[in-house]
């Protein structure tokens, strides 16, 4: 407890005490008991014959006084350690003690009219002293607890603030992590997509490679008879040359004979000999055969030309723009490519209904038709039938590829369009054939359906919109 000049202990610089006064510091007198308390106390005490109430601090200064003290009242010089004292006949001084410390004296002046015994005066003054003491103690308690409370609240707040900052930091860290993770996922997805596209292309090349043998055969056939025809024509050429020489020789000899300068060395030209020799050359037959041979060869060249251009359509890498195309033409050009694969094992039936031109990527549709046909062929063990057809469904056209091969087991059916799914032996199939079909159909905003029965065969139904809004490649 300190008097009117509060002086607080210096604090050590603890982390939490910045600007905060310790709760257990010495409190000033003003803080422990307000002047107004004595005001109201005095108001009540007047009725008990008390005329004057004053509080004098240890420094000698008045903290409170109801009236200036009369001159004859003299305060002791050193009030510390004193108990209750009577200053004169009507005045009593009570020490106010807090924590063993007399911090002030309360001076109680009694009425000189209503005379009260000294004992009563002392009892009354002591009672007031006890009241004030209790008041101080109770205020002290409140100060201590509210001081402590505010310190704890501030400290807790700082702690929470620190934790919040840490949380914010780690939240930010995780957010950044999530963002970079997202980027990484996108990057990886792109990588997988690229790899898939690459594998798809490989698959396409592989199927073309497989077809090349067949295509070579298709080219070889007309090539065979073209070269054979050319050889024959070469022979014919020699024969015609011979005939020409014969004719010009005969004409020369006839000329000489007429000029009367007969060549002694040569005999007379004999028409019958000449005709016999000419007949041996069989020019009639040759001249009849040449147009036929040429016609055949041109036809063969045409066939080669067609196959080569179909193959070019097929294998052409890179971008393709959407255009309107005839699905039947696509089927036919694909058939010419795969014909070698089909012709020995299968009987092909075409059941085309007239259909409108559709917006599509024709080369990609070729791939679809080829993959479906190849699957059909491979499902046939020795001899079988394949039917390929088209139907007009109004807004859509339908392509069907039906075979009477071994069929697809039920448990496998849901997975046939999955990438890398294959029932073929390792190395024989990539498992991308039908997946590629599926992707192309989806790109055309079409649908694909399959019906299959073990031992009876499989039918694929591909439906393509006539006027699809196709994304750019």
């Amino acid at each position: 407890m300190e008097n009117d000049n509060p002086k607080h202990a210096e604090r050590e610089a603890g982390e939490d005490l910045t600007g905060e006064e310790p709760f257990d510091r010495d409190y000033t007198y003003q803080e422990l008991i307000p002047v107004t308390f004595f005001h109201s106390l005095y108001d009540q005490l007047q009725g008990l014959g008390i005329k004057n109430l004053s509080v004098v601090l240890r420094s000698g200064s008045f903290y409170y006084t109801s009236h200036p003290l009369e001159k004859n009242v003299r305060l002791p010089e050193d009030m510390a350690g004193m108990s209750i004292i009577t200053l004169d006949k009507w005045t009593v001084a009570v020490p106010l003690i807090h924590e063993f410390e007399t911090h002030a004296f309360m001076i109680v002046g009694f009425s000189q009219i209503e005379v009260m015994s000294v004992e009563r005066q002392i009892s009354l003054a002591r009672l007031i002293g006890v009241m004030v003491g209790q008041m101080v103690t109770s205020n002290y308690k409140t100060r201590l607890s509210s001081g402590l409370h505010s310190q704890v609240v501030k400290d807790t707040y700082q702690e929470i603030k620190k934790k919040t900052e840490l949380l914010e930091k780690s939240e930010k860290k995780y957010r950044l992590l999530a963002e970079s993770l997202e980027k990484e996922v996108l990057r990886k997805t792109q990588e997988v997509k690229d790899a898939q596209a690459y594998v798809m292309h490989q698959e396409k090349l592989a199927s073309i490679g497989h077809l090349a043998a067949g295509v070579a055969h298709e080219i070889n056939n007309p090539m065979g008879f073209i070269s054979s025809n050319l050889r024959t024509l070469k022979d014919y050429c020699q024969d015609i040359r011979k005939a020409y020489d014969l004719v010009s020789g005969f004409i020369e000899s006839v000329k000489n004979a007429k000029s009367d300068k007969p060549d002694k060395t040569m005999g007379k030209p004999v028409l019958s000999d000449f005709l016999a020799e000419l007949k041996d050359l069989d020019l009639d037959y040759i001249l009849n055969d040449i147009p036929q041979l040429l016609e055949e060869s041109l036809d063969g060249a045409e066939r080669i030309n067609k196959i080569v251009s179909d193959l070019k359509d097929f294998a052409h890498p890179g971008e393709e723009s959407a255009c309107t195309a005839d699905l039947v033409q696509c089927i036919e050009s694909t058939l010419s490519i795969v014909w070698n694969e089909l012709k020995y094992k299968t009987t092909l039936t075409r059941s085309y209904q007239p259909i409108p031109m559709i917006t599509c990527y024709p080369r990609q549709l070729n791939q679809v038709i080829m993959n479906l046909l190849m699957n059909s062929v491979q499902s046939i063990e020795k001899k079988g039938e394949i039917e390929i057809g088209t139907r007009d469904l109004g807004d859509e056209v339908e392509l069907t590829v039906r075979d009477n091969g071994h069929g697809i087991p039920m448990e496998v059916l849901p997975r046939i369009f999955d990438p890398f799914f294959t029932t073929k032996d390792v190395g024989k199939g990539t498992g991308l054939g039908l997946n590629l079909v599926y992707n192309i159909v989806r790109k055309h905003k079409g649908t694909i359906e399959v019906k299959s029965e073990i031992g009876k065969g499989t039918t694929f139904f591909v439906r393509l919109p006539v006027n699809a809004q196709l994304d750019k490649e």
Partner: protein
Amino acid sequence: MADFNESWKKLTVKIVYYGPALSGKTTNLICLHDLVQGGGRGDLMSLETKGDRTLYFDLLPLAVTTENRVSILFKLFTVPGQVAHDATRKAVLSRADGVVFVADSQVSQSLNNAESFENLENNCRRVGLDFDTLPLVVQFNKRDLGSIESEESILELWGPTGIPLVFASALQGKGVLETFRAVVERCFQHLEVTLGLEKNYGISEKDFLRIAGIE
């Protein structure tokens, strides 16, 4: 943080009773209140308790006056032992001149003792008290109970630390005064070094010990 008030010729010494929940810190103060004979003693002030658990702190003021009329006021505080009240514990510990660590001797409480002691060390650092030079006494309380750590094992564990150890049973009044005396002794030695009590204020160790009833 002992504070000498020149105008009032008063030295205030703050001693904090620290330790795990229910180890008997308040019981120590209640008991001291009855045992201390040497000087003035105030009432034990308990702020905010819930049942027998201290939520804020208890405060016991004790005072002696030296021959040359210097008054020495000892303010004895307890902290709330429960883990959740760490901020309160920290605030009460702040500016302490000496600490009594009241440990619970029961075997089941050894972990709580260790955690609380570590907490004391941490809080000292946080309020800017030098744990190495801080006057500290460890009291192993509740010696009257069964299933307690043996004195041998406690001495074996704590002996090497050099911290004075007192075995006590606060409920029976045993060891309480000895503990208090030990911490007052250490407080004097420490304050003699930091403030120069004898030279600057004429306060002797005898004056200090008089509070604990030793002439």
